[in-house]
């Protein structure tokens, strides 16, 4: 170890040099030093090699949602689940581009259409962000917190929608802060693992639209505006099933 410290240019500076953190003056000094000190030059390339190995070693951690080599069956099931969520996330990211890139809501004259497009955008991104961030969907915010958040958005008489008649259990959700005001995402799941989310957001008091269906890349969104409320249901199920879910869910907030 002693010989490493004998170098007139310290290891800190060599390390900072590798990271591109030196100003041009010090960089020139270090480079001159490296050109006639083999040991220091060797150390710099050892640092670089090591950084490169580290990047290779840790690269799979970033994609582990996509490709996972675990063999145990239970973990494999969880993995498949997660992998499909990632595919869904990718698909929905595309959907966002489709919905967002046209930005037709910025051009349209009608405030209702504009708010509707925003609503779909918010609902789908919340859906995707929630699912792709989670290995298993947990009920992380307690029910009472979600119920309170829902009342703030949808009115004092609103209750958490009960979708059990259609086979869906509430498994999670979160309150959100949108540009339009507070919103809440509720996550439901059926026995075969299908996930649908109900999104409640604010709406200007005058805009009203009937239910509209948007479909892209395997994700359906049913949405409507009524009174002060924007409501959207998102999932990879058929639009018929999604419409049934949306109607049942809406009863819980219309009192």
């Amino acid at each position, binding site marked *: 170890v002693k010989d*490493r410290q004998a170098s007139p240019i*310290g*290891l*800190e500076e*060599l*390390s*900072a040099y*590798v*990271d591109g*953190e030196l100003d041009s003056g010090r960089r020139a000094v270090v480079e001159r030093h490296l050109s006639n000190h083999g040991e220091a030059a060797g150390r710099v390339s*050892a*640092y670089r*090699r*090591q*950084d490169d*190995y*580290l*990047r*290779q*070693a*840790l690269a*799979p*951690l*970033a*994609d*582990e*949602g996509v490709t*996972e*080599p*675990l063999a145990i069956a239970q*973990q494999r099931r969880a993995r498949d689940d997660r992998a499909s969520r990632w595919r869904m*996330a990718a698909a929905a*990211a595309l959907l*966002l*581009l489709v919905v*967002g890139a046209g930005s037709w809501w910025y051009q349209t004259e009608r405030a209702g259409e504009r708010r509707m497009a925003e609503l779909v*955008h918010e609902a789908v*991104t*919340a859906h*995707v*962000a*929630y699912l*792709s*961030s*989670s*290995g*298993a969907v*947990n009920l*992380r915010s307690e029910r009472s917190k979600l119920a309170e958040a829902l009342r703030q958005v949808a009115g004092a008489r609103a209750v958490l929608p009960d979708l059990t008649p259609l086979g869906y259990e509430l498994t999670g959700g*979160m*309150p*959100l*802060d949108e*540009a339009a005001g507070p919103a809440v995402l509720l996550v439901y799941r059926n026995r075969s693992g299908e996930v649908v989310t109900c999104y409640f957001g604010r709406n200007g008091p005058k805009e009203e639209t009937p239910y509209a269906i948007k479909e892209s890349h395997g994700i359906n969104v049913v949405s409507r505006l009524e009174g002060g409320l924007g409501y959207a249901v998102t999932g990879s199920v058929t639009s018929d099933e999604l419409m049934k879910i949306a109607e049942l869910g809406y009863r819980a907030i219309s009192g």
Partner: protein
Amino acid sequence: VTSFEERLIAELPALRRYGRVLCREREAAEDLLQDCVERALRRRHLWRRPGNFRAWLFRIMHNIHANDVRWRARRPRSVALEEGHTGAAAPVQELRAEVGQTLAAFEQLGDDQRQLLVLIAVEGFSYREAARILALPEGTVMSRMARARERLLDIRDGQARDRVRRIK
């Protein structure tokens, strides 16, 4: 114009990796990632446009984790490479030998050093950004980074000596 959510989604893989490095285990890392996304979505109005979005996200994750560690009794640290990481970082035997050895050495480092190496060497954050994420002075980042690199080399030297001994 890329929206907040699209940028957030684009950063999920890197955040997932940093979460894994912070937590060392999959389940806790997934929970951390979810908490981080929730908090980022809730605080999106606090993010200023010209600011560094990635560093902002990483700092949120780091802070959640630091609070968790402070409040919760820590889980045992003995994550064997075979259990903790084969599932994540591809089967070690499939990695090139040097890469596998580097990963094994990395696992032996302390949390501070592993975090720094990932932020700077893997994620490419500057010292200034890393200092903000970790709430450290920039000078401390620089000196700790050098020590982390040296420590990693030392551990790998030790591994090499062990291998030579076994061969003899």
